[in-house]
């Protein structure tokens, strides 16, 4: 009996040992920020990276994917401080299709679970845009987006619009944006050369697609930046402040340059401006911080041309779209 028990025990002991396992696929650990310091470059792709937007731990931007034959603009998701991409989602993934799609102006919702973006859809090779729509999707699944405002819409005052500019979240379930019309110009390689945007006004709309409302005092505004007690807007070279509830500006400052973008940090408007600081060098695009009391402008110079600025909510941080070495990329800048 002891021998039987011995054989059974030997078998059980044999079965209890662990097997050798095959090699594991090595995990490529994500990288952290490229650099330290107040200004850190977030993207290096020689292609176009634009429209940065950030919230909490996430940065989202639009990326022209030249590796795809359909030249789609995709959405890249980065850690807030920079490093390896968390996700790159493209229209029509995983395979390129016959359309030239672009996901632009993406912004992250206050609870960081959704993004709103403008979806441009056109025929591949065409310089015209087939449609533009404002859509909302889960951060993890941009492709499962729902249309909030379709291509071609009418404002409450009857004006026709077909474009969206400076989309932002106005709460957890509302969006705001500048409504207007737009002509989009591309080169033969489908790269967007320029857009001609004619603003009507800033509007708000529930994400569920309810009634659209026009925000007073924003008629003809090219850019806007909401602050606690009102709204900074740009018309031409004028930076104006429209108090909450008012239908006209209470303050107006002249900006000595062409205003390219507007955002605000802690109530202070920050601009992207094209100016000529040095006649020999010619026009440069820089950042500009405007004193809300005097309108005095403090120039912020970077080793690239600033083409757009966007403040990260609840942080003294800017995400800057800049032009360097023939392409646009994204930097983050922590304000002092």
């Amino acid at each position, binding site marked *: *009996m002891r*021998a*039987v028990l*011995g*054989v*059974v025990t*030997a*078998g059980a002991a*044999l*079965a209890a*040992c*662990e*097997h*050798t*396992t*095959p*090699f*594991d*696929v*090595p*995990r*490529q650990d*994500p*990288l952290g920020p*490229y650099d330290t310091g107040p200004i850190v*470059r*977030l*993207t*290096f*792709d*020689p292609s176009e990276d634009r429209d940065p937007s950030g919230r909490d731990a996430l940065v989202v931007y639009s990326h022209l994917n*030249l*590796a795809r034959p359909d030249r789609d603009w995709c959405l*890249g998701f*980065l850690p807030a401080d*920079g*490093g*390896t*991409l968390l996700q790159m989602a493209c229209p029509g993934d*995983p*395979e390129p299709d016959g359309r030239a799609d672009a996901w632009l102006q993406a912004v992250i919702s206050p609870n960081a679970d959704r993004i709103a973006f403008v979806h441009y859809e056109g025929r591949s090779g065409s310089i015209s845009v087939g449609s533009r729509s404002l859509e909302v999707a889960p951060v993890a699944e941009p492709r499962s987006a729902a249309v909030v405002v379709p291509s071609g819409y009418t404002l409450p005052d009857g004006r026709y619009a077909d474009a969206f500019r400076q989309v932002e979240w106005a709460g957890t379930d509302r969006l705001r944006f500048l409504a207007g019309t737009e002509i989009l110009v591309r080169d033969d390689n489908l790269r967007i050369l320029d857009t001609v945007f004619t603003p009507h006004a800033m509007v708000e709309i529930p994400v569920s697609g309810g009634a659209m409302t026009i925000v007073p005092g924003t008629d003809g505004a090219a850019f806007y930046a909401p602050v606690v007690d009102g709204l900074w807007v740009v018309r031409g070279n004028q930076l104006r402040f429209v108090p909450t509830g008012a239908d006209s500006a209470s303050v107006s400052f002249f900006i000595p340059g062409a205003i390219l973008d507007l955002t605000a940090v802690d109530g202070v408007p920050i601009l992207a401006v094209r100016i000529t600081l040095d006649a020999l060098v010619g026009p440069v695009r820089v950042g500009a911080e405007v004193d809300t009391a005097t309108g005095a402008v403090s120039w912020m110079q970077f080793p690239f041309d600033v083409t757009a600025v966007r403040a990260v909510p609840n942080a003294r941080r800017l995400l800057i779209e800049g032009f360097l070495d023939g392409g646009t990329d994204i930097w983050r800048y922590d304000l002092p």
Partner: protein
Amino acid sequence: MKRRWVLAAVLLATAATALEAQSAGIVRGQVTDVLNGVPVAGAEVVVGDGPARARTDTEGRYLIRDVRPGMHQVTARAVGFVALTRDSIVVSGGQITVVDFAIVPEAVALPGVEVEAQRDQLLDPRQPQVIQHILAAELRELPVTTLEEAVELQAGVVSGSFRGGRLGQDALVVDGLGIKNQLDASTGRLGLQIPIVALEEAALVTNAFSAQYGQALSGVITAVTRDGGDRLEGRVAYESDRLLPDGWDVGLDRVTAAVGGPVAGGVRFFAAADAQARIDDDPVAAPAPEDPLDPRHARPWLLPHNAGERADVLAKLTLPLGAHHEARLLGVASESQRELYDPVLKYAPGSGAAERLSGRFGLLHLRHASSPSASTSLDADLRIGYFEKEQIRGPLLEEPTSRFGAATFEAYAFAGRDLARARDTVTALHAIPGVERPEYVEGTPWGVPAFFMTTSPRGEVAWNRFREGRARLDVLLGGGLDTDLRLGGEYVRQRVETFTRLEAYLAVAEGAPAPSASGFSPYQGSAYLELQHRASDVTLTAGLRADLFDARVETAGIRSKTKFALGPRLAVSTVLGPATVVASWGRFAQPPDFQYLADAAFDDTLRTGRFRRGNPTLGFESSMQYEFQVRARPSPYVGLRIGVFVKRLDGLVASVPLGLDPDSSIFGNGDYGDVRGLEITVEREFRGDVGVRATYVMQQAEATATDARDLFRRLQIVPSGDTVIPATVQFPLDFDRRHAVIVVGRARVPRSVFALRGTEAALVGRWSSGLPYTRTNLGGDSILGLPNSNRLPPQFTLDLLLRRSVMLGGLDLGVFADVRNATGRRNLVAVRRDNGEAAPGEGIVRALAEHAYEANPYPIPYESPRYRAWADADGDGLVAGREELMPLFERAARDLTQPIFPYAAPRLVRIGVEIAF
């Protein structure tokens, strides 16, 4: 006298054997009075409890036909004599076992007096068979775990090829009924595996087999399953390599069990199971890559996504139906499934493809044996069987979950399985759900988008099912002791269903090849007649077999027709001086694989979606074999067997161009060839404590090798504009192994060595010259030299089995160690056709890298998951330009092309425990 020699020569040159492929053996002998040697007439000789029995004639001779192989008791009884029983008589299928009795008159009490006069089976001219047998005891004692491995121990067998023939030229006969994967035997597997613990005997016939059996050109494997015995017996064993260190452990777990015994009223049962799982189901002795970033560098032993498991179950009932009838019910079920490692998916192992194969076999065997008192015996066997084989290969819906080692205990879930089984080619025009589109993996050590994919670009869902019902009647008429007449026939009704969809992640409208499916119901029929006559030292066997088949399929408006084939077989054996000579001749035919009768779409490396047209007019493949064998016994325990053979193959299925497009082809019975061989076997019988058998085989197997692409390459357009097809040349066949030596040794520690009593060892050594292969240019599109004109290096393996058993209270307890390729030799079983090496040359690697770089020259920015800081030489946040990117592409190419499967299995060790009762 001269004329007689000529006649003998003709007979010798045109010989064939009989009975080889039978599942039953013959017991014959003589019963004499021990006091005076006078033959005892009318004595009854019984094998076991019957019904196999016979009465002696006036010369005391008896003959019992259709005795099941195995160990038997044989008893002789006669009025006025003491019954005498002889135990442990080994009967082999197709062989004659001679058992003589000298019995004692009852009036004279001389217990214990027994005279044995057993003939030498090696030299007995009444045994023309050239069968290579393996009995159950050997199967247990040798380092083999499957029937296929046991067959590989025999002369002339190479990886499923018999005597140099192509794959699929063999047939399996289980308990007297043939089983053949008629769908894709040349490229696929049978799907059915008999648990080795359920085998009473296995045998291989590679020469001219009996007229009873068809559907084979080169070999017949017979397997006789065990019956339940008179008392309850069983055995359970577990074996594993878990205890062994890294590199020796391939994740094996195997359980075998068998139990059998009486039920009631003479009914006996037997059941057996064999289940095995391995984490790496195709272990190879491939060297570790040199690149330290390659994950195989540190752990080169096991491949991920290469697990496999199988389970085989057999159950059998034996029912006596009166004195002269018996029924057997046999059921076998096999399931095997395995993941298929693909180097392209090395960094996405969870998304690979897998394969599942199921086999079912049911047999009802009714046997009638005439009364032993009948002047002319008549034994009849009616067998009705059903065989089914189903196979699917495709992407998995989810990664299998292992529960014990590699065992999942559940069937893999395949994408598109229901669609495939329904052969729904309409729905299959769309992308098949669950088959993901392939993308380049980001998480490789090299980062660059090249070679390594998230899912297989083949996107293949392939399914087939083959079913057949088979009814067979065999009749044995015994005219006296020296003449047997066998006749019988068989009818087989089959059903073939196939489905193939490639690039199933794409809709056909997006460019994927169209799905293909087929379904047809062939039938086959056969009849045979065979006469064996034994006269003094000469045994003559003559048989004739007629086969027919009709695939009953229509392709491109052409309908198949019924094909006929006749197979005469002749054998003679006699004594010439100190030796026994056996000569045989036979003509054999088998229907082609039915897969070649139906259209198929298939992929190639260029993803051009080639099309292959089925040919419903394909006829029989055939062969004719001549064999001459000499048997001698240089010393009492040493036997020598020398055989030479010539096999002429004809009508082999070949792929020939369809029109002028080399990418499209049709199959025809276009190829023919010759196999010539010499087989020498020297055996020191297992007597005492040692036995050794050594076999040497020298053979040459060549055939025409028609291939659509080769044919187009050989075509020449002469200046006059005429097309000239060069003379047809025969090339070595893929399994043309010129020299092979197999040594099988068994030894047992003498009982006098008490400390090691019960220890036994078996050794199998194999050395063989290399198989042929074809060299091409670096592009792979032009053959260098002649097809198969190059040779792989020789191979050598040494397998061992050590066992220690202890008998304790009726239990046989044992531990054993089974070692394969004990020397750990790295055998090369394939090479690249472009350089003759296992690994690609630097030029090939660079060319691959260059091609991949040109396809994706884009810089890799810092934020990309593909960015590798160590490759960013200038630290500018971009891996860009040829200087920085090409090293990555080259290392990726070297990773992809590292040789893995060109190498055979490494040293494999398993340790087991067993209990038998």
